[in-house]
């Protein structure tokens, strides 16, 4: 499938996830997206962050929310912003919706990052190409950032300094950011040297859209329509 129809389909799924309040629909979307992400190389960080984010929302949002009549558990009174630590059926339902929605959106981003050919997307867009190119470069450099982090950790371990705990890892943040800035400057220099920003440019010919591409666009429109109408 071409990149642009794939992106449209993904945006449609994300729109439905944002629009619907149905736990069943959100669970179905999350399940399908999980299966899709699990088939992609480099999936681990996206599966973990989506799962962690969703679980955190599900566990903590009932504790800070204060509504619903069907109280399942009442705990002690804590200082602001917590107040009474109580959990109601309504709060759990809302927490499930929020958690599934967040997980679905994170997984959709995972598919965008890992499963879509950004080169072709940049080529196919008629607007915001520079922004898309910047996003594509940022995504391409994510593994480089991971390698830099691993390199920093190894460099410290190589001197007998173990990187452990929040403080240990926090020490890596500043050099990682500084390293990324250095890389971005070098890349900007290289792009300028390769004629980027010269003015008129051409595009290498790309394959025309096939039946699957048009089918994906139709499905995307259908999903948005159904999602908005049946919310």
């Amino acid at each position, binding site marked *: 499938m071409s990149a642009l129809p794939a992106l449209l389909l993904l945006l449609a799924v994300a729109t439905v996830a944002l629009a619907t309040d149905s736990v069943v629909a959100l669970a179905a979307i999350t399940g399908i997206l999980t299966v899709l992400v699990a088939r992609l190389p480099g999936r681990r960080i996206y599966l973990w962050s989506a799962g962690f984010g969703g679980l955190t929302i599900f566990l903590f949002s009932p504790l800070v929310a204060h509504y619903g009549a069907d109280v399942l558990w009442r705990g002690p009174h804590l200082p602001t912003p917590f107040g009474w630590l109580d959990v109601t059926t309504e709060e759990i339902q809302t927490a499930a919706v929020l958690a599934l929605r967040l997980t679905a959106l994170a997984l959709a981003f995972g598919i965008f990052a890992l499963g879509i050919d950004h080169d072709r997307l940049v080529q196919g867009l008629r607007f915001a190409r520079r922004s898309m*190119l910047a996003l594509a470069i940022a995504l391409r450099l994510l593994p480089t950032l991971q390698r830099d982090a691993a390199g920093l950790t190894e460099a410290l371990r190589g001197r007998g300094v173990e990187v452990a705990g929040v403080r240990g890892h926090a020490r890596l943040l500043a050099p990682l950011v500084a390293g990324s800035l250095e890389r971005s400057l070098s890349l900007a220099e290289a792009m300028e*040297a390769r004629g980027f920003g010269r003015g008129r440019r051409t*595009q290498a010919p790309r394959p025309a859209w096939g039946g699957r591409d048009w089918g994906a666009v139709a499905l995307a429109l259908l999903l948005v329509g159904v999602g908005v109408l049946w919310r």
Partner: protein
Amino acid sequence: MAVARVEELRFTYPDAPAAALDGVSLVLEPGEVVAVLGASGSGKSTLLRALGGLVPHFHGGRFAGRVVVGGLDTREAPPAVLAALVATVFQDPEDQIVLERVRNEVAFGLENLAVPAPEIWPRAEAALDALGIGELGGRAIATLSGGELQRVCLASALAVAPQLLLLDEPSSELDDDGADRLLGEVAALARDRGTSVVISEHRVGRALRHADRVLFLEAGRILCDAPHDEAVGWLAAQRPGWVEPPGPRPARAFAGVPVATLDGVGFAYGAPVLEDVSLSLHRGEVVGLLGANGAGKSTLARIAAGLLPPQAGRVDRSGRACYLAQDPGRHLVAETVLEEVALAAPLAAAREALAAVGLDGHADRHPRDLSSGERERVGLAAVLAPAPDLLVLDEPTRGVDPPRKRELARLLRAQARERATLLVTHDHDLATAVCDRLVRLEGGRIAAVAAAAPVSRLHR
């Protein structure tokens, strides 16, 4: 007609105390392969950037004199315009690749230059084929090795059919044979097409093998600009350290105490990388670990230093091990040079280590304010300061000029008695100068072990 003409070029980077280029003049003719030699900071990279228009357009600074490339004055034509005439390959491929797929990456420059659409794919394919990497066209960039990435960058440069090709350490990721082959191919292609090539290389022998003409820069000035044979004569007479190896260390029998013993070590990243490797490292000896890219050298070095547990066999180690990875300048974490070196060592030892690598005047500076060569020396000081019993160095001379290489050789020899040292290197001269014993890995197995003297037997 000349491809490029530089007239009395003087350039100073913003806030720099001294000029990076000082009165440089030269003319580049079509089809000429020119090697630019000089120590780190001598102005080699700045000269390449001036020829591509990045100096002064991208970097700013004070620019005097004139650079004309293909009839365009670089003060008036920005780099993006000059890109139709000049292609540059920078040292680190990770810092110049834009797109995710090899074929798209090679086409990127052609698209920027508004090459007619029907010509783009054939030209991209031809450039990949010319460098023997046609089969990589459909691959994702993320799956390529460092050497493959460098070839992709070169293909991207060749695809635009430049009049002037600028190569800044273009083979730093390759072993000797691979780098030699690559430079040979590029030089042949350039001569066929009438492209002028300027190569900045620290591995002097390799640059000299492929150059028609040599420039030697020092403190921003051209000290020598001569045809190959004449330049070799000048170097031998005026800068002998650039053409003579550091000198072989006399081989000696060794009977020190083992600091680390690897017995039947095996490791695999999916495919086997090391198989049944046994090696002892004794206090007082320097062992050189040689082999082509992918032979398993870095994995073995990590296992020896205790950073990676072996999947088969065992490692016995006594005392402290320190490991210096490739490209240590990228892996500095502290706010000052002294703090960096003292992360795992007392302050006094850190100061001593800084003095040993010639950086004692830089203790209070931020590591990222230093040049790349100085950063690498900070990394070296940081593994010397803890006084390890086993020191493992992975390619410590990549991108290091011959004078610094000599200093490193002297330092390692002077301190050899204090520890066992494992030196992973592609650099035969350094290995011969420093090592007592050479171990050659091939396909994850030890193929040869010898005293340092008969190094040629190990390599050819």
